[in-house]
């Protein structure tokens, strides 16, 4: 581990002041950052501990539910408001990591997770994230867990979060504080596709700090579910996951929310499928067609062609099951 200075921040202004320094990184639960520091992949000079900040979940008339960035994953998943209004989010968080990790990991840190690509973790391998321009050993290596959508020749890594997949489906907003004030970024725009610059993973600017996640009210909460498919029952990243929500009037789809995990460099909001479905009939055939349309641009790698089929099946099956859940109480 590269030697660093540890600075606990008493409040947000103090955190921003400390975080403005070159070589500074914000520390939440540390469940990903500290791992990467131990591998010497992350080498911050200063760790600004923000884990004691923004630890509340509050209801706001204008913004909906506001989840502070410092809220622990377990606390968010078990919160009464979250479970009642956004059960999808609660399910997604509980599908991630392990109980021990969720107890420590923060909501802000979850958003900022970096990929678990094997070649990113091994500094004996070539990786454009670690060393821009070096090349990518994952493209023709072990890439079972890698992207089928939106990847580039420079990077085929996936974003590992479950929580963010639910946030994408729910149309959440990331509120950030920074040296130049506060701004709100839709979660679907927060993470980037790799393109030529896979080392740039989010739109955060230097020194900016996630303050909270804003969750607007929606009509799909009652018919929503998160399904995660992985190589063992727990403590494994998604091969494919689906966050889905449906709002029906009779058999007609009034609103549908669909996002995928494990398939791209960011939580993948399935806009193509949503557009195809909205206003149409909630039938198995429509679900299958919409899923196929979403996956039409998928490009398989050596080990992950199965994800195209798996994602298609999972979308169609999850939506079909949602139509079978009881009519939500008004």
């Amino acid at each position, binding site marked *: *581990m590269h*030697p660093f200075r540890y600075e606990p921040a008493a409040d947000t202004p103090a955190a921003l002041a400390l975080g403005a320094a070159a070589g500074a990184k914000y520390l939440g639960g540390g469940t990903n950052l500290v791992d990467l520091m131990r591998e010497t992949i992350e080498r911050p000079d200063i760790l600004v501990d923000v884990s004691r900040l923004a630890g509340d979940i509050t209801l706001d008339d204008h913004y909906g539910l506001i989840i502070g960035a410092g809220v622990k994953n377990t606390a968010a998943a078990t919160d009464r408001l979250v479970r009642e209004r956004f059960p999808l989010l609660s399910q997604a968080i509980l599908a991630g990591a392990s109980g021990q990790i969720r107890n420590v990991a923060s909501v802000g840190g979850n958003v900022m997770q970096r990929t678990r690509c094997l070649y990113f973790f*091994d500094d004996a*391998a070539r990786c454009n994230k670690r060393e821009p321009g070096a090349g990518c050993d994952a493209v023709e290596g*072990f890439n*079972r867990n890698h992207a089928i959508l939106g990847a580039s020749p420079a990077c085929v890594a996936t974003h590992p979060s479950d929580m963010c997949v639910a946030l994408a489906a729910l149309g959440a907003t990331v509120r950030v504080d920074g040296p130049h004030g506060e701004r709100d970024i839709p979660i679907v725009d927060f993470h980037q596709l790799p393109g030529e610059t896979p080392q740039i993973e989010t739109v955060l600017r230097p020194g900016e700090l996630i303050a909270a996640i804003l969750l607007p009210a929606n009509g799909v909460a009652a018919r929503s579910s998160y399904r995660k498919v992985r190589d*063992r029952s727990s403590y494994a990243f998604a091969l494919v996951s689906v966050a889905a929500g449906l709002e029906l009037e009779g058999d007609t789809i009034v609103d549908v929310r669909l996002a995928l995990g494990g398939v791209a460099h960011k939580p993948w909001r399935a806009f193509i499928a949503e557009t195809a479905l909205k206003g149409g009939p909630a039938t198995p055939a429509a679900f299958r067609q919409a899923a196929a349309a979403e996956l039409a641009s998928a490009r398989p790698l050596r080990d992950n062609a*199965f994800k195209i089929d*798996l994602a298609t099946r999972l979308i169609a099956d999850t939506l079909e099951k949602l139509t079978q859940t009881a009519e939500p109480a008004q």
Partner: protein
Amino acid sequence: MTGVKAAAQAAMQAVMKKAVALAPDSWIPGGEPDPLIRHKHGLIGAAISRIDGPLKVAGQARFSAEFPMERMTYAALHYSTIAKGRITAIDAASARAAPGVVLVMTHENAPRLNPTPPFMSKPKAAGGDSVPVMQDDRIHWNGQPVALVLAETQEQADHAQSLIRVSYAPEAGVTSMASARAQGPEQGYFRGEPLKLEQGDAEDLLAAAPHRVDAAYSTPRHNHNSIELHAATVAWSGDELYIHDATQAVDHVAWSIAEAFGIEERQVRVTSPYVGGGFGSKILWQHQILAAAASKLAGRPVRIMVSREGVFRIVGGRTVTEQRVAIGAQSDGGFDAIIHTGTVAMTPHNNLPEPFILPARSAYAAKSFKLDVKTVKLNMVANTFMRAPGESVGTFGLESAIDELAFDLGMDPIALRIRNEPDKDPTTGLPFSARHIVEAWGAGAERFGWDKRNAQPRAQRDGDWLIGLGCATATYPYYRMPGGAARIVLRKDGHATVSISAHEMGMGTSTVQTQIAAERLGLTMEQVTFEYGDNTLPGVVLAGGSQQTAAIGGAVIAAHRKLVGELLKLAGNDSPLAGLKPDEVGGFDGGLCSLQDPSRSESYASILARARQDEVMAEADGSPPLEGQHWSMHSHGAMFCEVRVNAVTGEVRVSRFLGSFDCGRIINAKTAASQFRGGIVMGLGLALMEETQFDERTGRIMNPSLAEYHVPVHLDVPMIEVMWTDEPDPHTPMGARGVGEIGITGVGAAVANAVFNATGKRVRDLPITLDKLL
């Protein structure tokens, strides 16, 4: 060894083997059953909790990396990033200048060492491989240690290690199976004999058989992941070396390290009181030798605890296998031919071609056999023993093929197995010492509800979940290796200490051996101390091959017989025991009594008091382990599995598992059940998820962590039921056969066969991941 000498030795061995096979039973150890077999209601078989449990729960059991020493230094390793070539330069200047650094050791300043004797090359050889340890600039595998840093703290050592920069002149290595195969496969040898056996013309009989299966099965590399990392605390005192090691071979490690350093074995003391899992991996790898070398250079004690990544880099695991299994059968199911052949990867520097044909040598009767293991050599960390080497992956191929044949024949797979039950060892012709697999199948099938299975795939469904049942035979040989010896000291207060250089890796050795000694001596468990884990104690007992219980048992029988002789001498003519011979008395209620007439007895206290002695001591070698050449000695199990396969996603969940075992007399119902269950859990990992991701472009292991190398989590493991025949083997100490490894065998096939029953899909390539079922 010259060809002539080897041939002469082989001929001599063959003659000896024949003589042992044909000798009268009474000449063979175990020819007279161990009297303990007759003890029915005592400590043997009881479900006794581990005596070291409270210590471990309280964190007071001291493991190898927990021994404090004055002026301790901490080691970190730097590993090569190429598979083959030379080191051209090592830039360690920043590492040397880093805070707390005591020493950086590379091939340029390491002490001169002899090559490590690789396992099975000599009786006490313990090396995972024979590659010279940091003696030159040659790289043999990706991950080989190239530098060691010693520092005042572990964190300082880890940091300094990360500052080292090594330049290489890479050479073309062999890192793919395809390129290794192109070099030409060679014959595999195991325990000095070729892994090749041909009886009758199996290919012709297969071709002529009315029913046959002929399929390719493959299993991937597996890495060892004991909870306790490989570790040692090492110190020199003059020319004497002290090692607190995490090992399953204290004597082997001591002898082999002495060889490496060119010192006498008696100058090396190895202790290992507690080991957090071994599974075949806790032998001599580079880290103990490097720590001892660095300690010598620095003149200070060294603690080395290899990181989890480091264990993947420097400790070998189970190698990859490519198997062909072909079985030809008549319409009634009788086997005409069993063919089990294939190729495994290994290195030029080790001795373990994963012997996957071992189960096929004795599991079933057949008119002909063709068994063969070929090896190819790669630049990789030397593969090694991993729980049931051979059987765990060999039973996957063999037992899957039998299931395929049963389906083709329209026969129940259990009935097909029983149809081919041999009445003597099918390939050696030796009589079985004890074999109750048919009873184990019957009891297991009834308990599991096998009769409710529909043989047609996809016949049972619960919502999205397709349900299937499968079964397979588990099998593992009985071994007892030479070298067992034990000492018993019996005090006049009736306390006995049994000492033997054996091992406790968490499986319950100390508990079980205390039970056995107490029962044999007629004492309570509180009156017996079992001393182990120290190479200065009598005997050479490897905790491997599931042989420890038998090896210790055989040595304690010999020491006990001698002890009884001493006691009878001391008892003299004034004792009720007067005139009795050692074989005519046994331990009972704190003393000796006549086996014929228990009323003739005298307590140990009384005997020693009359003889005016504080204690009596006896030490003896165990008998030569000839029983394995006189009888065919194997344990078996009937494994039953229920799986649920998601029809949408292909996810596999094992919902029930039952193992019905025939392993001789069970000594401790609790620790044995844990061994069976633990083996089955490891087998579920083998079946469904374990796979080392070895990048064939670079020879580098890409998933060296428990996050990416998947073993089962709690949710993956259903309720596992275990049961056993408890039929003593009349020819083994205590009537027992080892239980440490058999649990993993057969599991892969039981799961695969259940998956076929659920889905109609036959997966012949482990692990059975969901993409193979979509």
